Structure formats: C-alpha cells, structure tokens
C-alpha cells in the first residue's frame, strides 16, 4: 500500500537533490535545471496532498497548474538573463561571475 508518506518522502528526496544541484553546479543552466527539479518536488507534494487530504476538491491540482505556469515563466526569464550574462562576460559559470565582492 502506497501511503501519503511515500509520496512526500519521494518529494523530499527530489527536493534535496535539486538543492544539492543548486549548491554544486557551476553552470547557470545546470542551476536552472536543479530548480526545475525542485518545482517538480513541490508539484508532487501538491498533488499527493490533493489526492489524500481533499480528494473531492482538486485544489492541489489547480495550484499545481499555476506552479507549472510560473515555472515556465521563470525558466523563460532566467534563461534570458543567462544569455545576457553570457553575452556580457563570455562566461556561464556563476563562480566566475563574482564581481560583487570587496
């Protein structure tokens, strides 16, 4: 029997993997991909709660739709910024773009 906790645990693992990606990836696009992983973890949570806590209302599913939409918008803007940075610095590794210090 697959309970809510299974889904939540999966979601937590996925989220942690995404966080780890953000910590360790040098490539800005890699970081974006890690963020998408975290979005997915969140969506799994939403839908799992929707299924197990409020099966009749589908509120979680509706919010998952919104999250996906926001994720799409985020990806668009973030990639635009990444391309702009790349154009300026000829560089895409975030640890090289460290002009905001000292």
């Amino acid at each position, binding site marked *: 029997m697959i309970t809510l906790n299974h889904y939540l645990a999966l979601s937590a693992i996925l989220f942690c993997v995404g*966080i780890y990606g*953000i*910590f*360790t*990836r*040098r490539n800005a696009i890699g970081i974006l991909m890690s963020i998408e992983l975290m979005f997915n973890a969140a969506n799994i949570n939403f839908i799992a709660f929707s299924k197990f806590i409020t099966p009749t209302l589908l509120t979680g599913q509706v919010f998952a739709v919104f999250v996906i939409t926001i994720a799409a918008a985020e990806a668009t803007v973030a990639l635009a910024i990444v391309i702009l940075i790349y154009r300026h610095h000829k560089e895409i590794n*975030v*640890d090289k*773009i*460290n*002009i*905001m*210090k*000292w």
Partner: protein
Amino acid sequence: MLESSWLIPLLPLLAFGTIVFFTNRNPRLSSYISIGAVCASFALSVPVLFEVLQNPVASEFKFTWIDLKGFTIQMGILIDPLTAVMLMVVTIVSMLVHIYSVGYMAGDPRFSRYFSFLSLFTFAMLGLVLSNNFFEIFIFWELVGLTSYLLIGFWFEKKVAADAGKKAFITTRTGDLGFLVGIFLLVSAAGTFNFQHIFHQIEAGHIPAGILTISAILIFAGAVGKSAQFPLHVWLPDAMEGPTPVSALIHAATMVAAGVYLVARAMSVYAASSSAALIVAIIGAFTAFLAASIGLVQNDIKRVLAYSTISQLGYMMLALGLGGLTAGTFHLMTHAYFKALLFLGAGSVIHAMHTNDIWEMGGLFPKMRITAITFIIASLSISGIFPLSGFWSKDEIFAVASGYPHPIFLIVAVLVAFMTSFYMFRLCFVTFFGKPRDQHKFEHAHESPRVMTIPLMILAFLSIFAGWVGIPWLHKGYSSFVFFHHPHHAEPKIWLMLISTVVALSGIGLAYLIYYKGAISADKIKRKFAFPYKVLFNKYYFDELYSAIIIKPIIGLANLLFKFDLGIIDWLVNAFGNFCVFLSEVKEWFDSHIVDGGVNGLGWIFKKSGSYLRKIQTGDLSNYILIIFFGILLIIIFKIGL
C-alpha cells in the same frame, strides 16, 4: 549773566571739536570757527567783568561731580575780581593771536590743526582761571601743558621743535608732581578741594602750620614749572621753536602766567606761611635777575624775549611772595599785553626776514613802520617809561619791594629793571635801526599784512593804556578791585618812580650809545669781560648742568636696566621658553610614539581583521546560497526543537 559764564570756556572746546571732526579739510572755515568762538568768549567775558566791577564779591557755581562717602569732588566756576581780570587778559590776547595767526600761519599744511590746538588751549586756559577747586584746576593745568606740548612741537618735522616740546612737557611735569603732592597734602588736611573752603579753614587756623608750609612749597613747585622759574626755567627758551603766535599766547602772555595766577589764587596759603612766601619771593627775585642777565647777550630775537618773560614772571613772583597780590596780578595783566605785542612784533619781523638772528636784521624801521613803532611802544612799556602801562605795574612792584625790611629785593628789582631796558633797546636798535646787515634778506623784507598789523595796533593801545587803571592816585582803581583781604592803597612814592624812570632811561641810553651810536664798542666789552660773557651766553650752563647731573645718570641707569633686562630677564624668559620647547619635544615624542602608536595600532588591527574578514564575501552565488540555506536550516531546527 554770571551763571552762564560756564559758556566762556565751552565755546572754544566746541570749536575744537568741530574743527577736528568736521572742518579739518577746510582751513579757512576752521580758522573762522576758531576765531568766532574766542570772540564769543570775549564778548561773554566783558559783561562778567562789568558785573564783578559793580559787585566785587566772589560768586561760585558748582555741581557735584563725584560723590564718595563723606567726600565729594565738585566741578564749578568761581568768579571773583581776579578771575574777571584773567578772563579779560586771556580772551583779549587769545583773540588777537587767533586773528594774527591767520596771517602768520597762511599756507601751512596743518592750518586747521593749528587752530584746533589754539581753541583747545583757550578752553583749557579759561577753564583754569574759572576753576573753583584744586582738582579742577589741576585738570586744566595739565590740559594747558598738553596743548603747550602740542603747539611747541607743531612743526614736528624739525627735530629741534619735537625735542623742545618734550623738554617743555617733561620739565613742567617735574613741577606738576610737586603740585599734585601739595594738593593732596592740603586736601587731606582740609577735607575738601574747594578753594574757598580751604582758605576759610586756613584763616581759621584749622590746618597745622607744618603741613601748610610744605604744601605751599609743593604747590609753588608746580608754579615754578609752569612759569619757568629757576630751577625749572630751561624749557621756556627752547619752547620758542614753536610758531611765534603760540609763543606770544602761551609762552609769554597766558600759560606761563598760570603759575603766577596759581600763587595769587592760593594767596591765603602763602599769607599763612611766611617761610613759604619768602621762598617764593627769593626764587622770583633770583629768577628775575638770572634771566635778565642771560637776556643781555642772546642773539635770537625770540630767545631774548623768552628770557625777558622769565625775568618778568620772576618779578611777579617776587611781588606775590612779598604779599603784593595787587602788584603781582597787575603786572601779570600789563605784561600780558606788552609781551604779547613784543612777540607778535617779533613774529612780524621773522615773517619778513625769515630769520631769528638779530645780527642778520637791521634798518628795518622804514620798511616796517607799524611793526617797528608798536614794538618800540612795547619796549618802552616793559622798560617802565612814564606813562605807559609797564611803568605803573612795575612801580607797584617796587613799592611792594620797598615795603620789605631788607632792601635786597628792591635792589634786585631795580637792577633787573635796568637790564630789562638795556636788552630791550639793544633789540630795538639792532633790529630796526642802523645799516641792514644782510642786504639780500633786507630787500625782501616787507610790512606784514593787515590781519597781522591790526592786532599789533590794538595791543599797542593796550600796552599804553591798560596800566592806567592802576594809577596810584586813582582811589577806585585796580588796587581797590583785586586785593587780598583789604585794599592796599600804597601811598604813591615819588622817589621810587623817579628811581625807576632814571634806571630805565639809563638802560636805554646805554643801549643807544653802544648799539646805535657805536660810541662804546660792544666787542671791547665782550673781550674785557670774556668769562662772564661766556657764562651768560651759555645761559649759566644750566642745560649742560642738568644734562650732567640728571639726564646722564638717568640714561646710565636706563642702560644699566637695559642690560639687566637683556642679561637677566631675557635670559629667564628664554630659559623658560627653552624649557617649554624641551617639554613639548618630550610630549611630541610621547604623542608620536605612544598616542599615535595606539591609534595606528587600533587602525592596524581593524585593517588586518578586515582583510581577513573580507574573504568571507566571496562574490560566489553558490557559496552564498549554501550559507543562507544552512542558516535557514538551523532556524528550522531550532524552531521545531529537534
């Protein structure tokens, strides 16, 4: 009318202020203001004289100036016959000198200043004669001395004039010191400054005789300085470096008479102290003789007149010392007129010849008739020729001198009268008659302008007639107007008048023989009496004596003190300075090593720690987010209490 007589001195003061503050740029207007003020003073003085003539008592107007517990100092005016006479003398001579100066000083670059000084002097002199107490009279006394200094040194570009001003000031100050101490002594005994109160106390015998005598002598010291009596007479001849009208006004007619006036004013003091009075008489007689003998051989026209003035002032002192208030002040009045005339005449000659040396003049009579005639009138008057005013006043003095038990004073007086007539006519003959000795200067000589000759004529008139108020046969004359306690009606002594006339005429005759006729050679006499001549010519070496016994030691002392200053005080100051420098060097070391070290060390600590701590700010986003997330995680852990 008497109440408003305080205006008399105030008007010249106003003129002084106006000239100094407003019209300094306009010489003509300044002189008009000055003359107008003194004329107004004269116009106010005339009714005062008439009022006092009608009712010859002393009237006093005063107000409290400084009020201390149990002791007040008052300002006020005292008008009695003596004051009225002095007012007339001062205003008339001052007025004429003012007018004369317009001609004499024409073209001077400091014309306005000259007139402002004259006005200030007139103010001071009028205030002096109007004073009702010793405090006030001392103030005006000093003010008069100040203006005298300013006017002697008026041409201060000439070192001689500047030196003469200083000499006059310092010499008279020496006497003033005595005057001041005398005032304090008298006032501390009497408890008031007021003349009349003090005199009443003296007459009532409230003041100890010792104090009285000492203060009388000390006050006389002031008079000695101001009136150029021996031994403080040395400044007056030098004061002739000032403009000649100033010599006439200040150093012949009025200011130097202030000493005589002071003794006359304080007559009660001298009457109460016979020894002080005797000292006054002796000093007066000695000075009269001394100055007259010096006057015999001087060649500078103004210096002869200056010694003549000293001599005549000695006469007045002699008379006052013998108790002859009437005689002394009467001679003061007549002398003021004819001596002012003599000086102004001399000024006129100098104006024409541009020299003071009588041996460069000569034969001026045809060229300068008015000057010469008025000058001769004045000479006759001072010589005591009947019936000019000098005759009457000198006769009064002879009468007083003859009243003294011992004949010495009369003999001295007669001798001085002889010398006076001799040196005056020596001056007249050499200056106005004979052949011109300096042809070049003679040709340029000319009569002075009207503005100068008219005062001469007025003064000549006064020199003749002013003495007539004191003709002894007049029972309502001068002697019943100005007197001490009770009118002194000396019986006219015909034999004295005869002696006086004979002596005067013989003096004139001798001068005529020597300097006009040439019957007796002056050079021969000079050679025969070489030593006395030399002594007289060098004025008994008084200047040299003073220089040796007073000035040199003072300069020596000053040098000594200078060395002391330099050696000890400067050394101390420098040592202190060096010590301070040393201290500040120590402190500088402390500052730069300890304080600066501390501050720099603190800065170094922050700099170092900053340079380590700044490495935390890597600028690496991954790093930041790791740390932020770690922080959030810690918060969560603590919040949920795991």
